[in-house]
């Protein structure tokens, strides 16, 4: 019997980071249709930081949550509709209830890797409404594997049906992933998943390492469309998985068609590992900081690489985008460029 792996595709969520959350209704519709035809099991949509995250802090969405949920729902017949939600940005009353009304299937409730207890109510609410709840630990490179296990077990106890660790900064090397996934699978009864970023060119290798260490769920995006250097490139990931003898349930030709469509219709250009995204990965800073760091560095005539390393030194986490201004101001003062 072939080994199975569950593929979740956040092209229309993580990819939104790459275009400052400007994906439009028509773009959601056409990629959903293509992904559905290809048989991708879960298609995740939304603002880059999930429901309720459209903001000045993170960037305003071109498309309202309601509209994109409805659009995705109309265009997904067999694929499940997934969303990302971070307590602290989104609430049950304002955001999650509405998403459930629009018919989302899978709710991935996420927190920074050490703060799982803020997801309790949202995971419980999801389960009470008979929807699938996954727990997500973001920026997982910032905690030891033992702490990840402790946090993951909390999410499992709230009712999470799978646990995903994200390499949000693209910092991991395969060995880092193996160690963490191995300990998690040993300590949890629910499936474990991995979400890669490609800042150091490791997204596919890290995803394979996760699988070999016992992960059962992987995230991948068409052309790698995602924050910073992008994610694990979905079509490459699926090709590799098929060669390794894994079953994904995905029609490979139709997947390639969907990815060609994504390149044409969703992105100005596919993500590349540019010099700054290597720095972003090395500094361990959230990949979603790429756009605002570049903008602020340009405005204040600073080297964006210095900003990334300083943010990393201060252990700034995803969601703290306002700290870029403070760090930039401090650097400018140090450089004597500002009174």
């Amino acid at each position, binding site marked *: 019997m072939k080994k199975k792996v569950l593929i979740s595709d956040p092209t229309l969520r993580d990819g939104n980071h790459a275009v400052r959350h400007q994906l439009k209704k028509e773009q959601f519709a056409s990629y959903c249709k293509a992904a559905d035809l290809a048989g991708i099991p879960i298609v995740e949509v939304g603002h880059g930081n999930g429901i309720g995250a459209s*903001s*000045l*802090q993170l960037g305003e969405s071109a498309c309202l949550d309601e509209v994109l949920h409805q659009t995705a729902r109309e265009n997904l017949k067999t694929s499940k509709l997934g969303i990302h939600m971070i*307590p*602290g*940005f989104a*609430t*049950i*009353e*304002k955001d999650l209830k509405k998403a459930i009304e629009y018919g989302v299937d899978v709710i991935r409730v996420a927190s*920074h890797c*050490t*703060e799982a*207890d*803020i997801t*309790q*109510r949202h995971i419980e609410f999801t389960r009470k409404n008979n929807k699938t709840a996954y727990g997500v630990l973001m920026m997982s490179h*910032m*905690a030891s594997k033992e702490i990840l296990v402790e946090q993951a077990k909390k999410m499992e106890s709230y009712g999470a049906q799978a646990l995903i660790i994200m390499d949000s900064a693209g910092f991991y090397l395969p060995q880092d992933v193996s160690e963490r996934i191995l300990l998690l699978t040993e300590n949890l009864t629910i499936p474990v998943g991995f979400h890669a970023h490609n800042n150091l060119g490791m997204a596919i290798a890290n995803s394979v390492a996760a699988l070999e260490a016992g992960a059962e769920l992987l995230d991948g995006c068409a052309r790698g469309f995602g924050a910073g250097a992008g994610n694990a490139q979905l079509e490459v990931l699926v090709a590799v998985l098929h060669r390794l003898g894994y079953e994904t349930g995905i029609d490979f030709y139709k997947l390639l068609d969907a990815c060609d469509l994504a390149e044409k219709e969703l992105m100005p250009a596919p993500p590349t590992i540019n010099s700054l995204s290597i720095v972003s990965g090395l500094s361990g800073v959230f990949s979603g900081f790429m756009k605002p760091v570049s*903008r*602020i560095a340009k*405005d204040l005539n600073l080297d964006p690489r210095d900003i990334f390393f300083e943010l990393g030194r*201060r*252990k*700034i*986490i995803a*969601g*703290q985008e*306002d*700290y870029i*201004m*403070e760090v930039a*101001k401090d650097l400018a003062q140090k450089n004597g460029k500002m009174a």
Partner: protein
Amino acid sequence: MKKLKVAIIGSGNIGTDLLIKVMRSPFLECSAFIGRNFHSQGMQKAQTLRVNISADGIDYIKNNPDCCDIVFDATSSASHFEHAPVLADLGKFVIDLTPAKIGSMCVPAVNLKEGLGAKNVNMITCGGQASIPIAYAIGKTQCEVEYVEVVSSIASKSAGPATRINLDEYIHTTEEGVKSFSGAKKTKAILNLNPAIPCINMQTTVMAKVKNPDVEKLKPFLSEIIESVKKYVPGYEIIVGPVIEDGRIFVTARVKGLGDYLPAYAGNLDIINCAAVAMAEEYAKYKS
């Protein structure tokens, strides 16, 4: 001057820090520190401070209605919904530190006197106390305030279990407070918990979309209101701005605490407690 008696319900981080601040006040005296468990850290701390403690929760006040004039509720939003009617029947002046938002909202630098007319005063949230003075200054000096967003980051260690379980209420209450004090058409509140060691100080950024941003007009009004916040929260300071960044007004404030119960990084604890004590002292002066 005779000190006015206060009871504190809730022996978590907020309640315990509040106790230390009340004990320092020339106008207030803590007559009962009420929790649910004698073994909790807060109760132990109160005992070492030789304060009258009880583990009976709200029943202690029901059974000893003359124990106090003012009640600080530092429990959780859900508990305050149960406590509020009981305390109203007993005629207590209630200062609510949970995000239950039953009472009238108070930010001392903006509307301290208004609280005196209420029986239940809500201190909004820590993020509300840190951001509203700035949002209010924006509302007073800019035309057509379309949108105000407030983002706070606090140290993970400064957020106890009730704070964490009340995250949704924190957001709703902060948004309502910012809206009501700034007059913005739309508001949004965001909270980040950062686990970095050494712990980060509380920081709050206010971003606003207004018709024709006028930072020069904002500056003097803002400085004035910041000075009045500093009178009750000495560790409050503006560290970035006001500037226009990406077309929006941008201001960041840092709040260093007094380091009473938790260390100085827990400015979130400090600012809401300092505001609550300022309200209670105002009431005590008014009653004397």
